[in-house]
């Protein structure tokens, strides 16, 4: 369970968001510029809130009154960034293995886990490809493999379909939904496209001008 209650004064509006995210996919929809990315960055610890807290599986990651702020590298919260943020100077395997390297996993185990993950996403043949040579759909799979191989305690997806062209998007959407249904951790799926709610029947939020409301 992911629980958050966050306040932050932004330039154009104040950001106020409180909610609970159980295991499985929770959709957050709202127009662009409403604060969707800010919400994810606050949960991941990339941005400090002015007040509030973030609790994941009973562990306080942020608690402003108690002076607690776990840095992003200590949270075990993976983000799938909108443009995927693949490291251009690493090949596919090194990108996917990066989080395991950060956790000082032995080299042989990194190789085995990366191989397994690449096979799961059907991109094993691309292991040594440069990420700059991949198609949009392939880039998304690499980013997703990189985010999941570390077995995160929560997964945050920032407009995961926005960087794809229309034809790829239709195909990838089904694949992504299948992968995410199998991920059994709190998952926030942020999108400006209300259509994504049909894909994930779980709880959903709407965000507008920094104010988060739970949808029925």
């Amino acid at each position, binding site marked *: 369970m992911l629980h958050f209650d966050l306040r932050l004064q932004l330039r154009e509006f104040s950001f106020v968001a409180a909610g609970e995210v159980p295991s499985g996919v929770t959709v957050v929809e709202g127009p662009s510029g409403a604060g969707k990315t800010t919400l994810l960055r606050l949960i991941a*610890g990339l941005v400090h809130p002015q007040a509030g807290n973030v609790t994941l599986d009973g562990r306080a990651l942020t608690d402003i009154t108690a002076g607690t702020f776990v840095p992003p*590298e200590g949270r*075990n919260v*993976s983000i799938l960034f909108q443009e995927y943020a693949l*490291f251009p100077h690493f090949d596919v395997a090194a990108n996917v293995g990066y*989080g395991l390297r950060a956790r000082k996993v032995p080299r042989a185990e990194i190789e085995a886990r990366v191989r397994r993950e690449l096979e799961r996403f059907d991109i094993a043949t691309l292991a040594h490809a440069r990420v700059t040579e991949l198609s949009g759909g392939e880039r998304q799979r690499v980013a997703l493999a990189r985010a999941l191989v*570390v077995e995160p305690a929560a997964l945050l997806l920032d407009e995961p379909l926005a960087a794809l062209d229309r034809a790829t998007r239709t195909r990838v959407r089904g694949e992504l939904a299948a992968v995410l249904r199998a991920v059994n951790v709190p998952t926030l799926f942020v999108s400006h496209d209300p259509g994504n709610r049909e894909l994930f029947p779980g709880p959903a939020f709407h965000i507008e001008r920094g104010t988060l409301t739970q949808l029925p």
Partner: protein
Amino acid sequence: MAVVLAAAILAAFIVVPLAGLFFHLQPRDLITAMQTVPAQDALRLSIVTTFSSLAITLLLGTPLAYILARASFPGRSLVDAVVDLPIVVPPAVAGLALLLAFGRNGTFGPLFGALGIQLSFSTMAVIMAQTFVASPFYVRAARAGFAGVDRTLEAASATLGMGPLRTFAYITVPLAAPALIGGAVLCWARSLGEFGATIMFAGNLQGVSQTLPLAVYLNLESGNLPVAVVLSAVLILFSLIVVVTVHATSDRRTI
């Protein structure tokens, strides 16, 4: 037509004297000149001091460049301008300023004197003069290089579990590497050619502060033209290597 002519004149004006210098170079002179102790001392001293000042610049300039590229604080543009200042200050003025600050009777001279350190007219003075005039070339390039690194990649590294230092080492530095290498090479070349600040602050003592450019000057003054030509040819060759390296790294940047 006029444009081509102007370009040709300027290009020739640069190339002809430099290439012409090699016509004055006798192979016989090359061997005899490089066998003399002062020439060997100058070459050795230039290598030691330029790599020392480069090391100091990398050590102190990298954090500074990173801060200037990333942090916003009051007076940032002032610090930015101060860093660039040595590029436009005449080297002789820089040398005088260093002498007045760190010379035996300078502001901080007695402080170092009390510690038994005499900075002016020493090899350390050569390194200080080079660092003073050359470090901006590295800091400017590194600042631009760091500013060009996508911060989302650093955020991705952090959320994947890498702390700030390892993110800097694995993501920021490799992605800024072409700019860092280009800046370091330019900085080293500027140190190698340093003359004005060195002769003012460090003097022209063989084996202590007489680097290659100073040896060129001394040999010309004392009527020993062949040795001056040989040492100049060595400096031109180093410069050529630098120009080729900088162009090679900047080409990689655009790909």
